[in-house]
């Protein structure tokens, strides 16, 4: 039977597409030796050096299971993961941001955590760390990086305004921010009172969620529905709106650039910032203080916790070996009794997600600024990560910005954000 030219062309194109779709993964075993690949964003020191050191030790002790590290910048991690996985060239082990967990789980990217491994993880890690890497009750992998939010302040700027203690309530927070904010005659910001944004992907959402937690509110429910369009949410956003109206906060100011030079008096930021400030400020780091993010009443406080995890690719041909390696990477201990991963994270100024590691390391913290950051892991709201959470966070950010930059009413902005949240 002769096929028409059109049909032949269609068949050829179909075969080509199928060929592309069916190309296999790149991990291979040759002569009993297994080569695993680990994709992460730990591409620069100290993260790279620390991970390479642990991989070197594993590769030396396990000649039959070799692990190769592949790194990309954090900004390119999700794109790289998507493209490689779709092309059938996904890494055996992936390090990913907890927020992507729902998306990765929905697309069958991650292998289920074996029961014995899950049992060990559930019993050893902090609730914040577990919450940030669990979607719909299902654990995505080993919790690794854990960050909590705290209030960073410049002691010198506050002292110059006669303030000796960090604010402990929202009223004090607003008063302090208004008191220390300065602008020149042309309206240029000289000192921003309180920064409510971040430079990265989180923008205004994470600081707001921290204040929301401090007020006893929630961002999303377990089914992904909006939970913030209520009294607590409105109170938190009203606080931000008042500060914006009083010109004590300005979303055009970048805290990561201006705080170190004294252009920002206070900022709601994640714990990783401690390491950056130490490097950037040198001797002036002694001016930096860190306190819990206050709530509306005396004694109330809140924070947001977000995390990373390491999981195994569903398509890996060597899942057993990959879990074996991950168990070693996260469980092996050094002489001080702290796990290698815990020490590695602590060396980077991050909170070890394992409860025992955090407790041991907290006792020997040389930097008092790390104490409130460590403590926040016990009460912080884990960042929701079900499918659709990323879109919800973006919608929330856009609505918050209408308040901070355009002066829209908080009630209207929250209603708009809640409408844009679509559970999946």
């Amino acid at each position, binding site marked *: 039977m002769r096929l028409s030219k059109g049909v032949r062309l269609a068949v050829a194109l179909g075969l080509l597409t199928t060929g592309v779709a069916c190309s296999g993964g790149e991990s291979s075993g040759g002569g009993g030796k297994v080569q695993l690949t680990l994709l992460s964003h730990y591409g620069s020191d100290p993260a790279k050096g620390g991970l390479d050191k642990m991989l070197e030790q594993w590769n030396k002790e396990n000649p039959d299971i070799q692990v190769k590290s592949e790194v990309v910048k954090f900004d390119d991690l999700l794109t790289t993961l998507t493209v490689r996985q779709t092309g059938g060239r996904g890494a055996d082990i992936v390090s990913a941001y907890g927020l992507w967990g729902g998306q990765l789980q929905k697309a*069958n990217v991650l292998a289920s955590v074996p029961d014995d491994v899950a049992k060990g993880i559930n019993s050893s890690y902090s609730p914040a760390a577990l919450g940030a890497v669990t979607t719909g009750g299902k654990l995505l992998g080993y919790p690794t990086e854990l960050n909590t939010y705290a209030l960073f302040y410049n002691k010198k700027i506050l002292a110059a305004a006669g303030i000796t203690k960090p604010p402990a309530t929202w009223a004090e927070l607003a008063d302090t921010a208004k008191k220390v904010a300065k602008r020149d005659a042309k309206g240029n910001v000289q000192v921003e009172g309180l920064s409510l944004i971040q430079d990265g992907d989180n923008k205004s959402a994470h600081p707001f969620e921290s204040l929301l937690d401090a007020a006893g509110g929630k961002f999303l429910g377990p089914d992904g529905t909006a939970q913030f369009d209520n009294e607590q949410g409105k109170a938190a956003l009203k606080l931000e709106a008042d500060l914006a109206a009083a010109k004590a906060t300005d979303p055009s100011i970048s805290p990561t650039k201006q705080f170190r030079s004294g252009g920002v008096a206070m900022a709601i930021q994640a714990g990783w910032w401690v390491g950056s400030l130490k490097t950037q400020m040198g001797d002036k780091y002694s001016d930096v203080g860190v306190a819990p993010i206050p709530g509306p009443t005396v004694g109330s406080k809140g924070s947001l916790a977000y995390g990373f995890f390491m999981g195994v690719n569903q398509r890996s041909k060597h899942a057993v070996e990959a879990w074996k390696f991950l168990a070693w990477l996260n469980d092996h201990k050094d002489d001080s009794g702290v796990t290698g991963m815990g020490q590695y994270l602590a060396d980077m100024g991050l909170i070890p997600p394992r409860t025992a590691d955090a407790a041991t390391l907290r006792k020997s913290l040389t930097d008092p600024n790390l104490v409130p950051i460590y403590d926040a892991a016990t009460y912080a709201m884990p960042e929701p990560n079900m499918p659709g959470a990323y879109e919800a966070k973006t919608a929330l950010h856009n609505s918050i910005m209408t308040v901070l930059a355009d002066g829209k009413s908080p009630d209207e902005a929250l209603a708009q954000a809640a409408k844009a949240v679509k559970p999946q």
Partner: protein
Amino acid sequence: MTTAESSIATPTLRAATARRRGFHREGRAAYLFLAPALLFFCVFLVLPFLFAVVLAFSSWSGFDLSTIQWAGVKNFTDVLSFDGTFVRPILVNTLLFAFGSVALATVGSVLVAYCIDRLSFQGFWRVLYFLPVVATVVAIGNVWKMMYQPAGLINGILNKLGVNSIGFLSDATYALPAVTVVHAWASIGGAVLILTAGLKAIPDMYYEAAEVDGANTWRMFWQITLPLLRPSLLFVLITQFIGGLQSFALIIVMTTDGGPVNATNVAAFEMYQQAFKFGAWGTASAMAMVLFVVIFVITLLQLWIARRRGEETS
């Protein structure tokens, strides 16, 4: 058929058959030579386009091709819904960004090309104006971003003139015009190159005749230069407009997220976000199809207007 007729017909038939065979041989050779280009075109343009068409009617969160599910026209109804953000502000921003940058770049490039055509060292001037095209978008975006900062060069000048600082990239009112100006500035070089070539193609005799008739420079520009420059202008308009509608790299560099409050969010950036950030490939593909139709219709409109004015557009 008689013997005489058949003896005449046979050589004619043979010649036709030989011509056909020759044509087939030439045709095969031509296709063989074209094969690499056609294969490239198919793999990198036709296949992705067909895949995007399929995805526009599907639900897919990426990663695994076996999870693609038929969704009918749902993606289109979601994307074109007036409750959503795609039609307004994103598509409106896209059109304003494209129209604004094309208008500014075209007016600017016509003026610059006209001036260059009357200067010495024309090569030097062309290179000078072409430099932004060679520079990377990241460099251009960052330099302009610094100039737009509250303590930047532009606000510094405004302050000297007694005007308060403007949040060019942080105020939703100014952000889109601010990035549009930068895109127009960066596009002028390419347009200048094409328009100076167009100006060179205008015969001098028209200007000489006009001069004899007493026409001034302004009149010569309106009556001779602009009408005869129309084919080059049409090319510049179409290519710049398509580029403007598809552009988003500059916006990412200058605003990082299409903000403030979606003020600079354009269709291409939203597609990227939907696909690579949120894993909503169906939505992103439906947006791509809508943008494709918009670009197609606007390009046809431009060609139709040009044809009505008697331009050769084929």
